[in-house]
């Protein structure tokens, strides 16, 4: 039973970054900009948040107010991701450059920048930033006594970080913003038919900036959430989760609730890949070596199969990837 609790709580902790980043991608694409740069945005967010966490650790404030320090780090991750995404927005919106090429540039830039910076700060070859251990939410955070290794303790407290409740809040906020506000309606209009949106007085450029910046904010927080989930420190990489989040977004058909579902589905495969030997009900496949590659490959293949069947009625924003030119109205 403990193993089941572990699997569930691990799945949640890995689903959090996938969901946040996929929601970010969704916002960007609904405004009409393809955001390939999610991977790079995650790296920048995680990098800045890790530096902040380490600064709090050194000053001693982290141990006194761990969750306040964590909240600040999460905000820093979001803001730095947002700042980095301005580069994409500027290229894609103001200069009408090719969005995928601009995004690729940011994806190459971010991890190299992170390596060069950590190398310069921590010294030669020290490319992993350690994360302090006080960030985890434990029973003591709530003034409770430390319980034993029971089902519920493992389920709730083994991998409980502030990123999880924040992700729940952001999910609800993202859904409300997209479907229940005037802003959301206008944003979606810019991704479907920017000319029509412009003709009724919506500033398409501003809306697209908003979409990309929101995706930067969510992507940055997703970066630190991923780093926490992995738990072995930040080594200038988010292991392709930015690209996996793109798959989650497509699998979720550009809608928040299906994105939540597919994030959990993709995270489950990730956890199975890591723990397949200790999960009793899985086929044993004893003859196959390196089974984790097999399980990690499956979500991508499933996404491609889903794309075959859904491409005809895809809910992808119609004007995504096309720079908006006022003159072509």
């Amino acid at each position: 039973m403990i193993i089941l609790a572990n699997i569930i709580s691990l799945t949640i902790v890995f689903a959090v970054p996938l969901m946040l980043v996929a929601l970010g991608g969704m916002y960007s694409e609904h405004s009409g900009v393809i955001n390939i740069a999610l991977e790079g945005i995650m790296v920048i967010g995680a990098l800045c948040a890790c530096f902040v966490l380490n600064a709090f650790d050194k000053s001693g404030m982290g141990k006194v107010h761990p969750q306040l320090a964590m909240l600040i780090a999460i905000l820093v991750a979001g803001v730095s991701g947002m700042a980095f995404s301005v580069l994409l927005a500027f290229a894609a919106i103001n200069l009408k450059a090719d969005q995928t090429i601009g995004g690729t540039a940011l994806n190459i830039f971010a991890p190299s920048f992170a390596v060069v910076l950590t190398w310069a700060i921590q010294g030669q070859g020290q490319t992993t930033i350690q994360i302090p251990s006080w960030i985890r939410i434990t029973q003591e955070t709530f003034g409770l006594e430390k319980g034993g290794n029971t089902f519920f303790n493992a389920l709730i407290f083994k991998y409980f970080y502030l990123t999880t409740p924040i992700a729940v809040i952001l999910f609800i906020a993202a859904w409300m913003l997209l479907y229940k506000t005037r802003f959301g309606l206008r944003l979606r209009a810019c991704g479907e038919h920017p000319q029509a949106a412009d003709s009724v007085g919506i500033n398409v450029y501003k809306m697209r900036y908003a979409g990309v910046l929101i995706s930067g904010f969510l992507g940055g927080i997703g970066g630190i959430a991923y780093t926490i989930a992995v738990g072995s420190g930040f080594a200038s990489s988010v292991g392709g989760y930015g690209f996996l989040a793109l798959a989650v977004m497509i699998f979720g058909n550009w809608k928040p609730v299906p994105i939540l579902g597919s994030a959990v589905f993709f995270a489950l495969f990730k956890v199975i890949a890591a723990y397949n030997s200790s999960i009793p009900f899985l086929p044993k496949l004893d003859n196959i070596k390196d089974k984790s590659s097999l399980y990690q490959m499956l979500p991508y293949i499933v996404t491609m199969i889903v794309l075959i069947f859904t491409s005809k009625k895809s809910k992808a924003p119609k004007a995504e990837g096309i720079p908006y030119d006022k003159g072509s109205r």
Partner: protein
Amino acid sequence: MNKKKSLAENAKFVSILASLISILVGLLLGFILLLILKPSDALGGMQAMLGTGFSSLDKFGKVMYQAAPLMLCGLSVGFAFKTGLFNIGASGQYTMGAFFALIGAIVLQLPWWACLLLSLLGGAIWGVFPGLFKALFNVNEVITSIMFNWIAMFLVNLLIANIPVMLASAWGASNSDRTAALASANPGAIIPKGGLDAVFGNSSWVNISVFITIVVAVIMWFVLEKTTFGYELKACGLNKDASAYAGINAKRNIVTSMIIAGALSGLGGGTYYLAGTIQYVLEKSILGMGFNGIPVALLASSNPIGTIFSALFISYIQVGGAAMQPSFSSESTNIIISVIIYLAAFALLIRGSIQKLLSRKKAKEAES
């Protein structure tokens, strides 16, 4: 007649100028970053990056060795660009090409040229998917390519781990996280040095692959510029609807273009791993070589002949980047590369508007 020619030359001149400017800006921004990080070592770092490639014959041999796969990945990305497709999947095709080449070398014990042909096949197979998905289901080739990059990496890891004879441990070495060294598994599969090692001061890196690649580049130039097939591909890239109206089968062209692009990247994987100096290590992240094909193609504005020079340049600063350690990480080179790509994203636009200006001028002249 004379005037028209000068305009065309102008456009070419503009694109070379744009590339040179983006290189300069990239180097400048890279230098500024180094200055901010470690002012005392910045100048030395830049000197290492820009001077190492020519510092010794051995290093220059390494520049040539790495230029071959870069050139092929650049040709691959550039060829797809010409057809209006963004082949971000060069990395996966490169990985598949490397895998096929190594299967040929280690399991099938084939000679080097047969292994290179196999790498072409491996890359081509991986190019089929983005092409087919685009042509049949209208799925954006960028998305398919990204997914297949990861599928390629995991699949190759899985297959190599499950073919015991592929691993170094089957050939007298102790490590099982990488493929066998070709020197012990099948020396005949190592691409011959053709006497170049003598010229390059016994460099272990250099072999004839760079010449094979230059021949491939010339062939690609011929296909694109001098054949009906190449003309049709370019027409599809410039205007899909107009070319369909003119009776060109756009769907078939998308698939063929991706197959050729895939084969080129695959050959790149073959040339890199059949040199006998590097073993394929089971990777945790996607190989960067395919992504570096993107700046190579962009700097050359997808021109196959230009690709030869831009690949040599990127390879040159990469070899230099490795020499920046220990004061700076070798990833500093990638920062410069990313700036070049970022600027190239606009450069395409600037070139486009210049071309528009030129054609408008032409139209006005025709009217008067």
